């Protein structure tokens, strides 16, 4: 395991390097440049554009820009944002980093627990009315677009009833709706997956053995059937976690939250290279770590899985 970890971490570093190069190239590949966006209506003002280019070092040859960036990076310096003049990239991202993980983790916890619960109930009662009803609700949850749900909920709960704030971030009340909306899709997806995998494992002989031992139904489902569905569910949870933590633009926009998703989108739209690079690096780190943890969990959950060391 430790050898596996060592290699995994080494390849992690390599992955970061690839991410840096890939984003750097991709950024320059993207049509339109930051100066254009900064200039807005004055985008054709060549004089101004040249001044800005020089100010941001964008007039240097590409390889020099790259070297500059990488040396900065090695010193832990992600550079300054283009979009927000003079603000360090770290600071821009930190805005989102204070919010998105909170929403993401809360939504993840919500969707894992609720999704698993609903899926498990449906699986145990497979074929019954409960199952059909639950799955219908779940499918509706999957099929109604997030912004429709969000708009509806805001209108009802905030505008009409005045129970919850319309938007913003800071108070616990303000977190409720975003978390719920972010969780709806994942809940539905997870519920369906759980049901599917459970139906798979509930038919196994060892589940019969558990029943023969007098394990109560809950134990049968949780301890035996669900446990054996953990590996694929964990995988999905890992991806979901990544997706939720790195921000859901729909939720962030509707609830007016400066999360990572929104920062990513605005920085890309503004061709704010340093922030975009910073975000990709952060996300790479996120996903790399999450997936590493998921892989380790595989081995812990299923002793038969051996992750190849190579």
């Amino acid at each position: 395991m430790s050898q596996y970890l060592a290699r995994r971490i080494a390849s992690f570093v390599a992955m970061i390097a690839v991410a840096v190069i890939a984003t750097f190239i991709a950024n320059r590949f993207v049509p339109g440049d930051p100066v254009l966006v900064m200039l807005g209506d004055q985008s054709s003002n060549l004089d101004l554009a040249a001044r800005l280019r020089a100010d941001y070092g964008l007039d240097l040859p590409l390889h020099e820009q790259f070297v500059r960036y990488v040396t900065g990076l090695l010193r832990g310096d992600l550079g300054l944002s283009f979009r927000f003049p003079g603000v360090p990239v770290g600071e821009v991202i930190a805005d989102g980093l204070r919010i998105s993980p909170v929403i993401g983790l809360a939504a993840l916890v919500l969707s894992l627990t609720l999704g698993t619960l609903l899926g498990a109930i449906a699986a145990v009662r497979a074929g019954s009315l409960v199952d059909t009803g639950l799955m219908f609700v779940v499918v509706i949850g999957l099929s109604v677009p997030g912004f429709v749900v969000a708009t509806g909920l805001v209108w009802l709960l905030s505008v009409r009833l005045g129970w919850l704030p319309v938007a913003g971030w800071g108070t616990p009340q303000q977190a409720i709706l975003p978390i719920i909306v972010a969780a709806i899709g994942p809940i539905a997806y997870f519920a369906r997956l759980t049901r599917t995998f459970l139906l798979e494992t509930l038919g196994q002989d060892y589940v019969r053995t558990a029943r023969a031992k007098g394990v109560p139904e809950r134990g049968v489902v949780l301890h035996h059937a669900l446990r054996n569905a953990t590996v694929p569910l964990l995988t999905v949870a890992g991806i979901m976690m990544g997706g939720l933590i790195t921000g859901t633009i729909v939720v962030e926009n509707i609830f007016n939250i400066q999360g990572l998703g929104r920062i990513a989108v605005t920085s890309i739209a503004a061709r704010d290279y340093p922030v975009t690079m910073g975000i990709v690096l952060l996300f790479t780190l996120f996903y790399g770590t999450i997936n590493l943890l998921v892989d380790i969990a595989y081995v812990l959950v299923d002793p038969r899985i051996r992750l190849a060391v190579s």
Partner: protein
Amino acid sequence: MTIPVDLHEALTIEDLRVGIGRGRDRVELLDGISLSLRRGEILALVGESGSGKSMTALAAARLLPPGAELGARRLVVGGADVASAGGAALDRIRGKSFGFVFQEPMTSLNPLLTIGEQIAEPIRLHLHLDRAATRSRVIDLLGAVGFPAASTRLDDYPHQLSGGQRQRAMIAMAIACNPPFLFADEPTTALDVTTQAQVLTLLRSLCRERGMGMLLITHDLGVVSAVADRVAVMYAGRIVETGPAAAVLAAPHHPYADALRRALPRVSAKVARLEALEGQPPSPRAFPTGCRFHPRCARATARCRTSVPALVPSGLRTVACFNPIAETKETAP
């Protein structure tokens, strides 16, 4: 309403019927099986592969596969009325009132739990022992079933074990709570004879000393004769002969039971060719009419083709045959 339960009654199955599937796919697997066992008694259930032995046990334990339907006049296992119990009540009966050794030790063990955990589970559930006590009981159990170095190997996962080791883990699990009754479906097929002897001795002493009843499903007639008090022979979903083990093995009355005995190889001497039954075993989808054995039976008469022979008592035995061997006074070689 509670059904009066005889305290000496370890197992009662009356008129058990099991069918599976719907519509055209419907097959009747068991046709009116009745069995009864007293505490301390060992009944061996032998018979043709696919005749419904495992189904009988599974049905009595209410562990039938999805899609199977069960009908029975009475089902009492280990002093508990299984037929009417449901949900939580059934969970309290299973594992405590009876244990179950499944035929397939590999797939019947949870691949993600160590055998120690799996054996500990019924102990935790029914005996409510603390961790240490549970662990030492698990080690004792594993030792009793002849598991080598039990204290280290209880942390093994099923895939790390040999076939026989899994089977022994399964047995340890089934007897973990000292149940008054045990379903043992081919419990020793993967055990070498010495280990088998040890395990059977253990099971038999549980029966003799603790009054456990045991339904022992096996193909090994040697095992039957060594441990069973009584034997029931099944063929194509029906019981065709029952009686004291020694007597039935020595001189079966039903031609099928006789054929079984004749087909056995021996360690003591090598025979040129084994005496197998002619013809194909019947499929539940197309059971023959009348006596289901008649197409393969040398003694079959016209009557066998049309009417179903009932299990009729003769002495300590019951036989379902119109032309039983006993009447022709044939003796065993």
